[in-house]
């Protein structure tokens, strides 16, 4: 069976130790976690995690079931096959020494990136988008040389169903 990418929203109690329970579940059950992003929600007593995991069908089903078993997990939302918005933020420090800065700026503009900091031989760029978008930007920047980078991991929400009248 081939591996699939799954994106899950997990509403959890906003309590100490919850992140450890989730992370521990993935390691003790031998699940592959690609990214995990977590923060408070509209209800301050809950947090929402966005987890991206990879695995075959059986593993992905187990991930959802095992998450549901945790007492501190209030709801698991499998967004994979839904119409959802996915966003990730990356900060990338690009080597500009001896490079054509205008070309770099050109790509930054195409990808609607923001320059957050510059020094005489680097530019730090903020870029947001889905997985694919960030990856393609990174691919291009590799040619210039990435000095450092950090990614938040994706967060995602399902779109509201549009009313038709």
């Amino acid at each position: 069976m081939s591996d699939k990418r799954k994106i899950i929203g997990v509403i959890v109690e906003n309590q100490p130790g919850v992140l450890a329970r989730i992370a521990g579940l993935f390691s003790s059950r031998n699940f592959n976690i690609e990214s995990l992003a977590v923060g408070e929600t509209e209800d301050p007593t809950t947090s929402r995690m966005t987890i991206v995991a990879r695995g075959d069908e059986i593993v992905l089903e187990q991930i959802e079931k095992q998450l549901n078993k945790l007492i501190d997990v209030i709801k698991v939302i499998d967004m994979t096959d839904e119409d959802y918005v996915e966003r990730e933020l990356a900060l990338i420090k690009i080597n500009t020494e001896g490079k054509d800065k205008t070309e770099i700026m050109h790509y930054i503009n195409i990808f609607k990136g923001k320059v957050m900091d510059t020094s005489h031989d680097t530019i730090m760029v903020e870029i947001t988008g889905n997985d694919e978008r960030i990856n393609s930007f990174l691919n291009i920047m590799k040619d210039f040389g990435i000095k450092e980078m950090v990614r938040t991991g994706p967060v995602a929400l399902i779109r509201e169903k549009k009313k038709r009248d």
Partner: protein
Amino acid sequence: MKGSKILLECLKKEGVEIIFGYPGGVVLPLFDEIYSEKQIKLVLVRHEQGAAHMADGYARSTGKVGVCLATSGPGATNLVTGIATAYMDSVPIIALTGQVLTSHIGNDAFQEADITGITRPIVKHNYLVRKTKDIPQIIKNSFYIASTGRPGPVVIDLPKDVLIGDVDFQYPDAPNLRGYKPNYEGNKLQIKKAVELIEKAQRPVIYIGGGVIISGASAEVIALAEKINAPVTTTLMGIGSIPWNHPLYIGMLGMHGTKYANYSVQESDLLIAIGARFDDRVTGDVKTFAPHADIIHIDIDSASIGKIIKVDVPIVGDAKRIVKEIVDLVKKKEHKEWLEKVNKWKQDFPLTYNNEGEVIKPQYVIEKIHELTKGEAIITTEVGQNQMWAAQFYKVSKPRTFITSGGLGTMGYGFPAAIGAQAGNPGKIVFDIAGDGSIQMNIQELATAVKYNFPVKVAILNNGYLGMVRQWQELFFGKRYSHTYIEDSVDFVKLAEAYGAKGLRATKKEEVVKVLDEALSYNGPVLIDFRISKEENVWPMVPAGASLNNMLEGELA
């Protein structure tokens, strides 16, 4: 009211009568409160592991929640094996642990251990109580979590200042757990599909596990078996859910299961799994397991379904309710030919052993224990050969009377579990079937049994070996008995006497009954040293990872 007092009041509200525990520095305030406590009895153990297994044996034999108590740090970590044992076999226990002052947590304080961190993967849930006022709700939640859905252990870590704190006490009526709603009702559509499959099947087998005992579904499962005339096999954990002499019972399946159970499963065209989880000791090679069968899987834990094996009809919910619905809907079936075939296997390949000569055979000891207790004893086992012989040769009639560490396979479980079972069943005979290896892992609890006069009987099947490991070495490692010969240098009779218990020994077959009689007529704990044949093996045996068809057999008479 002080935190310690609040805790005891909450436990009383939950119906707790007995706690197995051991004191220590940070739980002093609690023990001080217990000193003047009249309603709850504290059984002082000799090692915290014993306390956890006792709570477990108490829970399995009574169906109530078992409670154990230990201090912080080493006290708490000593509970870990017992907690993991309970977790693997879905046993509701509450483990109360002391913790250092909240202001000291994280400072590597004296006797500090992060027990909620350590136990996270082996509990159904755990709590670190941060405020005295949180105790009542946490206790309410913990008992609810431990005992409902798929039961399991809950650890409650109590810092010393939380036990000392003084607040108003009020016990909540209900748990406040928005993320936990066990699902008991089976999906109607799935139940209908199951009924259709059952009515279509020609060679059905019902395969039941510990979930049937937990759910109290024995009567329903037997009714189903009788209505559709399907043979019933149990896992190790399911033993007792159907009486041993029921004509449709075909014994245990799996690695040391009966040949007829394994053959039946392999030939079946429908497997009805109820409260069982397709453990590797049951399935052997999953790819060749029940190759012709459609599978219906009924389980309260949705994660157990589809984890190991692909299932045709999954039904999540309580076994008792679901099976009852199926019984009501399904048409009567005869399956004459199929039952004839199964019964033929039963006749041709009975569980047996060579009982010639003077030497004591372990199977013989177990048969005699059954005979002399009229099958009414609560049996606990250790782990290894003793456990498998007990499963094969002790004929169990009722649920909750065969108590064994199935999932984790914890040596040293049986004796403290027997004490716990005895505490919960004062009038009953409780027998621990042990090996000379396992019994030494929690032998210190003899002091507990003597002090409170829990009249537990221990039958040590003493072959001088770590027998099951030796058996594997004989079969799969060219008889290279690496560190499995433990010598018969321990004098178990003297050891029993040193603890103030009764010690007995039998070295010849003719002495077995006499010694058992003496043990049973003695009102107190007894350790019996049965010197059994040294290299007896457990047969039949499916090698680990092999197909269930591939059963090894010893030289039997």
